[in-house]
């Protein structure tokens, strides 16, 4: 009995130490990546390449998803609002939902699935094929040269993608509301203009997407950099990127929402 208890405690302790070490390594990596900005500034081409890879290549997915989510919001919103004869506020409901919540959150979830998993797989395979060690042996810091541009590209791309998602979502809601359900187009836009506050809604949404950009890209890069350099290891890391990012985004969304709109 005592032996079983001790074994259990030992396993628990080892898991705890392992988890704490990973968290420590993740934070050290984050500091090193952030500090690499000086080196990156000398080679802006690295950032531009990654902005294309992380941001531009995600545009189609984000745009289509934003349009559909806006259309669904238009439909659902209309049926609920019409019960209170408040169809005229459909634009506000769609825009507020998108700018405050769905834009940053859904964009971050899609970003983690598309760009985040790709980043993890890319960095993990670079590790498995000794490309990162090769850079080290060429006296080139792989964190500054490979990881830092990807981190900043992710952080810059996320708010832009979230803005695109929200904009197309509002358009989707407009098409459904005015085209299918008979809501007045002028009212749709006027209500948005009157009720959506720039600081309260738009800025807070941008702040959220910036935070999600940091977290999702950090998780993706750390999982790739810290992967076990085998095909199974890269596969597990890629899965972890999506799972951890999704949970982090949803958890942080609650915290940020409470801080921003709690009063």
């Amino acid at each position, binding site marked *: 009995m005592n032996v079983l208890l001790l074994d259990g405690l030992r396993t628990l302790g080892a898991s705890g130490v392992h988890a704490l070490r990973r968290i420590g390594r993740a934070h050290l990596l984050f500091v090193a990546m952030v500090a690499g900005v000086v080196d990156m500034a000398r080679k802006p081409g690295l950032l531009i390449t990654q902005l294309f890879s992380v941001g531009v290549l995600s545009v189609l997915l984000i745009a289509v998803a934003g349009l559909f989510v806006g259309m669904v919001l238009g439909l659902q919103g209309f049926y609920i609002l019409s019960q209170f004869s408040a169809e005229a506020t459909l634009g506000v409901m769609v825009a507020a939902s998108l700018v405050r919540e769905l834009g940053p959150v859904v964009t971050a979830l899609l970003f983690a699935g598309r760009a985040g998993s790709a980043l993890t797989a890319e960095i993990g395979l670079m590790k498995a094929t000794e*490309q990162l060690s*090769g850079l080290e042996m060429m006296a080139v810091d792989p964190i500054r040269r490979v990881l830092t541009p990807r981190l900043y590209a992710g952080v810059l791309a996320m708010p832009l993608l979230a803005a695109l998602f929200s904009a197309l979502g509002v358009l989707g809601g407009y098409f459904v509301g005015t085209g299918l359900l008979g809501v007045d187009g002028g009212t749709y836009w006027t209500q948005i203009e009157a009720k959506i506050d720039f600081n309260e809604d738009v800025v807070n949404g941008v702040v959220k997407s910036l935070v999600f950009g940091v977290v999702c890209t950090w998780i993706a890069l750390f999982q790739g950099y810290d992967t076990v350099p085998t095909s199974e290891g890269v596969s597990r890391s890629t899965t972890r990127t999506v799972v951890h990012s999704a949970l982090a985004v949803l958890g942080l969304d609650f915290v940020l929402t409470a801080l921003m709109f709690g009063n």
Partner: protein
Amino acid sequence: MKSVSDSSDEKPLVRIRGLKFRRGSRTIFDGVDVDIQRGRVTAVMGPSGTGKTTLLKLISGQLRPDAGIIEVDGLNVHALSRADLYRLRMRMGMLFQSGALLTDLDVFENVAYPIREHTDLTESLIRKLVLIKLEAVGLRGAAGLMPSELSGGMARRVALARAMAMDPMMIMYDEPFTGQDPISMGALLKLIRSLNDAAHISSILVSHDVQETAAIADEIYVISNGHVIQHGTPERMMNSDDPWVRQFLHGLPDGPVPFHYPASPLADDLLGESG
């Protein structure tokens, strides 16, 4: 009368003393001493999993030993700052087992990469340097190919050209012959020896391909179970009386390393099953 530089040249390029290194609970090195002489091809041999690649990573500062000192060109590798370690690495080349070419760059750009990173040379000069390096490994005509278009042997020759790009004082080869066909292996053997002699560099060759390595090495270290078993010229090693060295270098199936994995007596197993 010898100058200061002459006397320093006589010291080993790499000097390892009392090296101890563990991975988890497994001891990889337990008090290893090695001297790599300048201008020579030194082979480090031993069975798979004995820590040959780990030794290269320790020499290049990618891993940190638990105890002992590793000096390269008189510098204690693990006492250097990161900037100094990078400066030292600019004088070291390493050929990885996989080649480690950057897959998003073509052959020309892979070889040009360290030159672009560490020098301010003009584009025309970089082009000339890269073409000279590629010519040396016989792949000037492949400059425009991507790594995915190269065979394993070609990828290693490109990696060798890249390792030579900064005119290093030493090159470390990690299992360069693994998975190579006879033609590629012959080309690599010739390149390693001729580059070592022509460029006056020092080479550390990690391998378990006995005949090929013995053909070009000036000195061989055989390591196993965390220790250097024996070292010397290839002739001396091939004629060694040490049973372990004999078994390894002559590929004998049984000896100090037994053919059978440890098990209970066969009769016990068979009778136990029938009973």
